[in-house]
């Protein structure tokens, strides 16, 4: 079959091109392909003795994009750490996936990992649960509202398209911005002010998530000036799916059905654009436009069609539009598509634009012919458009026609397996950790207030309240709890099946400041924090699964890749040690921005998201102190670990030791705490993270406006610590504050025997935080109201 010539289909003469011309073509067509990739394509078409059409070249570029193929993680590496070299055959398989594989050998609750749109684990005997977190960084930089809202829409479609479709029951979101108070004159040309980005992003998430009726239950906001030109927006969704619905495959002659919104020219080149650094000349037509009600409409219909088993496979139209949705779905069969059948928003699209458009709110189904009328009727009843645009074949070819003309004819095998593997070099040099350089400040009380007011620690309530976190009626542990709804919870607990005892706990953790010192311990710390956030729910935990999300700068720099490899190694160790497998993940590179020719890259940012199945929601602990005279324990071990801490940043010291993790001790401690909690001995629990003990104590007091009397001398430490500021603001991992009912200390300590813990004080009726320092003098004597005000004021807009 020959490809006919049409005016609206260009043929690109790559067979005759030299290296320079190939790279020019890659740039001019916004393909983001490297020279070796362009050459592989050239060779392929040389063999075919013809040149590719624009649609073919675009399809290859989309399918081979970093966004779709995770090229960096699947590359082999020469990794040089402190001068000694190591060969890594496939970074993903030897780190993230390795721990999962090892854990899978002894656990039977992993249903689908790394294969589909999202990871799936077993929930109860009738249902499984899926979780996915995506990034939408570049679109959010150009159009914060649109970028963030389509970020939500996209990840929700991932869940709708996992297996035969899961019902979304919770959203998470994590943002990284520059400081909203950045002076206007410091904003380079071509980028939006961080406050505008912040406001736009949170409005986008709120408007889209709220309209879909999915509760936004957990998240985080992290501030650092390196996000000025390239904010990060992570959107996550959890879904529930009946058992047995995780498998899917289209059959020969099944119809290809486009469901949902019409196709327009919005979002052309989204996938390849995510592999380009941003500048003041970036074209915003790469950003998609969202309409949540369109998505809600087919959400309702799809779940009905799923239960009637009307389709054999489903996937979302995300990056690359039809090209990647049909291309991926038909990989094992082959597919032919007739583009003139696609319903358009408006006339005038070129064939390749229809094929590549990333218009939102579209899904692709494979429907056995006998079911098509029933499906159409179902859709019709709810005003959802469903259109047959082609069918699956058995020739393992992807063929696309426009008005009877063949405009694309690609071999599935070349499309999916033809990408040349690259070998990358990664370099990591650890610097010797230096002790913290500053001396102990005099007014610790004032420092505590300043730390509470720091952007990364301050209350995020003003953002959280814009999101409906209660819709669907299953949110029990909410982001803010306590008497006045001002006390932060470490994780959220949601019951996806109303009335069930079992529920899902979800938490997030990121701390790129640790990564500035050592990304291995950043990864380990994140996993530990995500896990202990779930421990803090007080519930007995059946299983914990993790998601990894890497947002990095250019992978063309050896030191960026060195950090990446070291982070991935930390992920492997931590996941394995905590028996918490990764089930899905995402990576995003080229998160950088050029200002006057100088590249500013985001700090290597790893987000760890955790979901856990908790056995019995009646065991949930509300955060914060409950009753005067109850005892306050600090579990875990405190070290002089202030490297990358909030305190060190406040003081402007880039030295210090980064927090490490002793995972054996941590696990023992967490298990003991869960047991003590299930025996009813624990009344409140809170994890120590940014800002350390001082912040955790304050936050626990906010729940019922109670106070605390603490003696720092009582803290058992892992090394000799002679400074009050170190004890109060160290960010050593694996520690929790635990409120134990007065009189139950013997029982509690019996259960915790063999772990590290210290009884450091008691809850007081008077709403004042009183801390006695090492020298016996009172170093903090602050009204809770004042601490709370300090914590609430920073982001109260």
């Amino acid at each position, binding site marked *: 079959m020959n490809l006919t010539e049409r005016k609206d289909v260009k043929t690109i003469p790559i067979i005759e091109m030299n290296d320079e011309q190939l790279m020019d073509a890659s740039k001019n067509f916004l393909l983001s392909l490297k020279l070796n990739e362009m050459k592989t394509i050239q060779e392929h078409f040389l063999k075919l003795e013809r040149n590719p059409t624009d649609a073919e070249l675009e399809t290859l570029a989309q399918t081979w994009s970093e966004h779709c193929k995770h090229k960096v993680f699947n590359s082999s590496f020469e990794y040089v750490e402190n001068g000694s070299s190591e060969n890594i055959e496939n970074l993903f398989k030897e780190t993230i996936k390795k721990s999962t594989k090892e854990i899978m050998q002894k656990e039977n609750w992993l249903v689908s990992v790394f294969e589909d749109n999202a990871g799936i684990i077993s929930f109860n005997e009738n249902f499984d649960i899926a979780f996915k977190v995506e990034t939408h960084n570049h679109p959010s930089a150009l159009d914060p509202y649109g970028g963030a809202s389509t970020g939500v829409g996209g990840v929700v479609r991932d869940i709708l398209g996992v297996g035969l479709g899961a019902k979304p029951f919770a959203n998470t979101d994590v943002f990284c911005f520059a400081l909203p108070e950045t002076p206007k004159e410091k904003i380079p040309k071509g980028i939006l002010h961080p406050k505008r980005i912040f406001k736009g992003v949170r409005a986008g998430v*709120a408007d889209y998530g*709220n*309209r*879909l*009726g999915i509760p936004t239950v957990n998240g985080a906001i992290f501030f650092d000036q390196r996000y000025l030109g390239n904010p990060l927006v992570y959107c996550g969704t959890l879904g529930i799916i009946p058992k047995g619905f995780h498998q899917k495959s289209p059959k020969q002659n099944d119809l290809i059905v486009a469901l949902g919104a019409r196709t327009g020219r919005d979002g052309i080149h989204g996938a390849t654009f995510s592999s380009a650094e941003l500048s003041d000349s970036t074209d915003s037509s790469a950003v998609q436009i969202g*309409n*949540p*009600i369109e998505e*809600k*409409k087919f959400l*309702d219909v799809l779940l009905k069609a799923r239960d009637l088993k009307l389709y054999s496979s489903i996937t979302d139209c995300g990056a690359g539009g039809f090209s990647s949705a049909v291309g991926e779905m038909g990989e094992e069969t082959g597919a032919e598509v007739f583009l003139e059948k696609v319903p358009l928003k408006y006339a005038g699209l070129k064939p390749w634009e229809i094929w590549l458009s990333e218009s939102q709110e579209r899904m692709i189904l494979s429907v056995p012919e006998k079911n098509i009328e029933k499906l159409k009727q179902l859709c019709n*009843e*709810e*005003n959802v458009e469903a259109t047959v645009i082609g069918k699956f074949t058995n020739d393992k070819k992807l063929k696309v026609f426009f008005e009877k003309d063949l405009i694309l004819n690609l071999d599935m095998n070349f499309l999916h397996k033809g990408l040349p593997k690259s070998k990358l070099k990664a370099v990591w040099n650890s610097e010797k950790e230096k002790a913290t350089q500053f001396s102990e400040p005099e007014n610790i009380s004032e420092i505590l207030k300043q730390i509470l007011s720091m952007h990364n620690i301050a209350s995020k309530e003003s953002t*959280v*309240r*814009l*999101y*409906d*976190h*209660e*819709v*669907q*009626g*299953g*949110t*029990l*542990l*909410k982001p803010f*709890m*306590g*008497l006045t*709804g001002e006390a932060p919870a470490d994780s959220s607990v949601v*019951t996806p099946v*109303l*009335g069930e005892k079992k529920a899902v706990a979800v938490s997030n953790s990121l701390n790129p400041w640790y990564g500035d010192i050592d990304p291995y311990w950043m990864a380990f710390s994140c996993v530990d924090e995500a896990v202990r956030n779930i421990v803090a729910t007080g519930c007995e935990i059946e299983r914990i699964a993790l998601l990894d999300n890497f947002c990095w700068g250019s992978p063309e720099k050896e030191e960026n890749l060195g950090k990446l490899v070291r982070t991935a190694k930390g992920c492997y160790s931590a996941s394995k040690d905590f028996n918490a497998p990764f089930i899905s993940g995402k990576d995003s590179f080229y998160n950088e921005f050029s200002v006057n020719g100088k590249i500013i890259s985001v700090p290597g940012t790893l987000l760890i998201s955790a979901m856990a199945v908790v056995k019995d*929601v*009646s065991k*949930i602990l*509300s955060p914060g102190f*409950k009753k005067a005279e109850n005892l306050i324990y600090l579990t875990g071990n405190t070290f002089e670990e202030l490297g990358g801490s909030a305190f060190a940043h406040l003081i402007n010291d880039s030295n210090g030791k980064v927090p490490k993790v002793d995972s054996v001790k941590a696990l023992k401690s967490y298990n003991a705490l869960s047991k003590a909690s299930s025996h009813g001995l624990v009344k409140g629990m809170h994890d120590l993270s940014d800002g350390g003990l001082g912040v955790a104590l304050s936050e626990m007091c906010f*729940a*019922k406006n109670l106070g605390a009397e603490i003696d720092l001398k009582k803290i058992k430490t892992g090394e000799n610590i002679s400074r009050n500021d170190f004890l109060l603001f160290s960010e050593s991992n694996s520690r929790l504050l635990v409120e134990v009912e007065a009189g139950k200390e013997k029982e509690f300590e019996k259960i915790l025997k063999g772990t590290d813990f210290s009884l450091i004080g008691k809850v007081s009726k008077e709403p004042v935080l009183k801390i006695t320092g090492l020298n016996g003098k009172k170093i903090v004597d602050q009204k809770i109201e004042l601490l709370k005000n300090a914590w609430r004021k920073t982001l109260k807009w």
Partner: protein
Amino acid sequence: MNPKAIVMRTAGTNCDTELVYALKLAGFDTDLIHVNSFISGKTSLDDYDFLGFSGGFSHGDYLGSGKIFANKLKYNLEKKVPQFIEKGGLVLGVCNGFQILVKSGILPGFNNDYSSEQSVTLSFNDSGNFQCEWIELKKEQSKSVFTHGIDMLRMPIAHGEGKFDPGSEEILNKLKKNNQIVFKYVNNPNGSVENIAGICDETGRVLGLMPHPERNVHIFSDPLKLLEKENIKEKNGAGLKIFTNALSYIKSERNK
């Protein structure tokens, strides 16, 4: 036979699964049906005792909250909902459902006229923002059949347009005189006139309110219950009472 409830939905409806769950928990046989099915005549309200409009963003709320769904009721279903009420049916509208009842002229239903022009409204919160938080309601002396045995009630709100505005002093006085004000906020979250959170019609069988009783049927949905969980004796969340009251009313009417 259990009383039968129906929740009518459209594009952009949400909060429907939890409303259905709450109705079932209270003892209703409950169906969830798209408005198109009523327009086409496939489903009839005659088969039901209770009609629910849940929260959400019907048709996106882009022309004002609930406006399009309200127009569908008015111009596509015409007299069907008014006739359902006149025949003794119960109607509950929560959040977007309340907005729909108000904008279609079903509430306040002065003189039992459920097809009049819109007279009161729910407008943008004073904060200008969507707000999701738990609030406390105080029951007023009213004709509502939903509130028996309730004095104070905690529930979450989740809305951007929940400020109740009667439009005129005259209408406000009429609502007061007729005992149509059902709930008031203890601490007004959105600027509602006289703290009004929910109203009923003159028969007491139609209730509209902004807060979500269906989100407080699990005992630990209320954060205060979780905070004081040692002292809890109840099995369900306090919001369930709204639904069991409706059920009891229908049963007692049947026995008359």
